[in-house]
């Protein structure tokens, strides 16, 4: 069967079980958009290519399947660099297809030409420039394989226009031949027994649960391992939901804005069991002072993570689920803990009692506290609601105050910290899980970066719900300027009224609701939950002066954690210029 390169590309995507792709056509990708008309793959037409990338990410987060974005050359390709980098940092499986000028024009500074493979080399797991239409099925199959296996990540395929137009004889490769790519997933049995010895002897062990557990579909295995060992679990920002927050052994999130107990449990631990996390600086603070007495077991599918930041005592390379299964089996054979951990457990429950997350909502209803909004949303939405956040204060409050009881219910930009992530990622998540309620928790600053994608949501009938915690500021920056720059507020004020968020929502085909007092919160949420024929935006006018606590000043030791406003003076004294 003779096909054009473009037809072969679309057929190859079908062969890879792509259900939906997010994109926007343009000159160099035009040939590919023609067969898309005849394909069973749903195409979601975005309003900006960055949106296509984040939608693909949101889709991948909640389905575990690779997200697909398709855009043209030049500015479209550069617009998708941010989502690629975001996916690379957070190990999100994604395949991006970009158009390119004709092969003969490459290097001539042709219209809408850019060196897409060169630009994206640093932000993709791998990328391809297709030079022969006959290579298309092989390359597409390889791209999906690379994106989804080992440590997942984004792969880009750059397709010149003439390659799309030329013909090839269709085939579908049976096998993948990538001699330089063979991720190891099987775990080394010797390392497992070494790890179990450390675990059995540990008096103060803590599990440091990372996003790798979600990638490995290891939530059940983790639950069994914790049930067997009784060890407490802290879930990183990328792993929220992998272990139920309502389980008494869950400590919540560690790190810069983590729960006091999670932070202190790491600091005082004698054994950190890191499962698929990477000792990110937002978790460790100053590494010199991080968990100083802890031995380290580090499970990671990417061996380059072992010793990148902290040298492990036992490094286990492999898939986190397989590692947990092996640990469970070995633990059952070897018998239980050799030591009494009751003192450690009571220390932990003491911290939990003394230092819960705190805020105060005034009875008058004013000012409206963002944490109150989150608690109301949490308590008045289905248990399996998917929560999507942007980046900043609202993201930290959402992670802190939501109770995640299921894996794949939390979507956010962790490593790259991409403002504007929430709206498009929520659309992608809802496209992937259309029967679930999807709430984006966004900041007013973030919302303004990508809100035009609400038009996409309205036009494509993807009814997401957006809660803007509108404090009229770039709030996290404002918080740091307050604490570390002598309250000199430089370029952080945004105004609560410009734009008129309700008017904007309505102009984009969404329902818009404004909430100014705590008394109005519940009815607004109920109203929003009942709207399913279009997206909803709620403009929650929240207290501009509320800060995120706890807080470890950047560059400081986790021991210097600040619990609330009463610690601001300490924060100012101990905080270095933030980084």
């Amino acid at each position, binding site marked *: 069967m003779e096909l054009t390169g473009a037809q072969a590309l679309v057929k190859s995507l079908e062969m890879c079980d792509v259900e939906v792709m997010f994109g926007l056509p343009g000159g160099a990708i035009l040939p590919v958009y023609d067969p898309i008309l005849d394909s069973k793959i749903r195409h979601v037409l975005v309003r900006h290519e960055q949106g296509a990338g984040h939608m693909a990410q949101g889709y991948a987060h909640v389905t575990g399947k690779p997200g697909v974005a398709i855009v043209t050359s030049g500015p479209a390709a550069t617009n998708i660099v941010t989502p690629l980098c975001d996916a690379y940092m957070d190990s999100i499986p994604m395949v991006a297809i970009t158009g390119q000028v004709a092969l003969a024009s490459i290097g001539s500074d042709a219209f809408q030409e850019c060196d897409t493979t060169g630009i994206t080399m640093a932000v993709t797991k*791998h990328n391809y*420039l297709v030079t022969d239409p006959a290579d298309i099925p092989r390359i597409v199959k390889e791209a999906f394989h*690379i994106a989804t296996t080992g440590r997942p990540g984004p792969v880009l395929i750059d397709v010149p226009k003439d390659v799309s137009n030329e013909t090839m004889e269709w085939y579908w490769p049976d096998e993948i031949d990538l001699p*330089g790519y063979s991720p190891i997933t099987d775990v080394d049995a010797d390392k497992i027994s070494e790890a179990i010895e450390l675990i059995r002897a540990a008096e103060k062990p803590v599990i440091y649960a990372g996003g790798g557990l979600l990638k490995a579909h290891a939530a059940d295995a983790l639950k069994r391992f914790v049930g067997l060992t009784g060890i407490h679990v802290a879930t990183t920002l990328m792993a929220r939901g992998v272990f139920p927050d309502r389980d008494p052994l869950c400590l919540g999130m560690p790190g810069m804005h983590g729960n006091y107990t999670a932070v202190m449990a790491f600091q005082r631990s004698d054994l950190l069991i890191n499962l698929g996390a990477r000792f990110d600086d937002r978790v460790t603070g100053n590494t010199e002072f991080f968990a100083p007495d802890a031995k380290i077991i580090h499970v990671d599918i990417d061996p*380059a993570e072992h010793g990148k930041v902290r040298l492990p005592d036992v490094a286990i390379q492999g898939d986190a689920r397989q590692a947990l299964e092996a640990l469970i089996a070995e633990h059952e054979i070897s018998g239980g803990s050799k030591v009494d951990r009751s003192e450690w457990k009571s220390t932990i429950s003491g911290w939990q009692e003394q230092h819960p997350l705190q805020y105060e909502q005034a009875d008058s209803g004013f000012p409206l506290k963002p944490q109150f909004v989150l608690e109301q949303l949490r308590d008045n939405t289905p248990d399996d609601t998917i929560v999507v956040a942007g980046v900043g204060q609202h993201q930290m409050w959402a992670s802190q105050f939501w109770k995640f009881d299921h894996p794949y219910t939390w979507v956010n930009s962790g490593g790259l910290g991409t403002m504007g992530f929430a709206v498009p990622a929520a659309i992608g998540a809802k496209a992937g899980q259309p029967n679930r309620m999807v709430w984006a928790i966004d900041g007013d600053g973030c919302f303004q970066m990508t809100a035009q994608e609400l038009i996409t949501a309205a036009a494509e009938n993807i009814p997401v719900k957006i809660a803007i915690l509108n404090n009229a500021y770039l709030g996290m920056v404002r918080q740091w300027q307050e604490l570390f720059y002598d309250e000199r507020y430089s370029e952080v004020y945004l105004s609560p009224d410009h734009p008129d968020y309700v008017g904007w929502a309505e102009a984009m085909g969404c329902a818009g609701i404004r909430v100014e007092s705590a008394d109005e919160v519940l009815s607004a949420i109920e109203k929003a939950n009942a709207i399913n024929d279009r997206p909803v935006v709620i403009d929650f006018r929240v207290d501009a002066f509320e800060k995120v606590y706890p807080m470890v000043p950047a560059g400081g030791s986790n021991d210097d954690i600040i619990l609330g406003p009463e610690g601001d003076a300490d924060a100012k004294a101990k905080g270095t210029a933030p980084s």
Partner: protein
Amino acid sequence: MTGSTATNGEQNLHILSVLVENRFGVLSRIAGLFSRRGFNIFSLAVAPTDDPSRSRISIVVDVHNTDATQIAKQLDKLVNVLDITELQPGSSIERELMLARVTASDADAMRQVIDQFGASVVDSNEEELIISVHAHPTELDLCETALRKFGIIELQRTGRIALGHLGG
């Protein structure tokens, strides 16, 4: 690489012998990885192997700040990288080629240098000579120093290549 400091701190220099697929952009992928991870390339030599679909890249890395294992692990993640061998100083045969254009003066003294380093004169006229020498990089350093007194007009080194000792 600068002048005769080419092998200063030899103990900090490890050689990664990297076998790669001869694909579009592979050198760029490797160089890009080094710059974005903050690793230092000291020298780099690349050429196809006996199998034309493969190239061998000999990268001399400065391990003063980064451990060579971490560099090797990051390199290994590149899809086009097939194999990496870390060759430590002393455990491998290392060679480098140098071409030097020098002023032709004091023929006897020059002859002595040429003999001492096993160099050869590959081109000459009345004023200048081009000398070719291949040796261990530290030998080349010494040769370079010796040639300096005659007046080096131009000098080019290839970066080192290496193979592991046979052992036994």
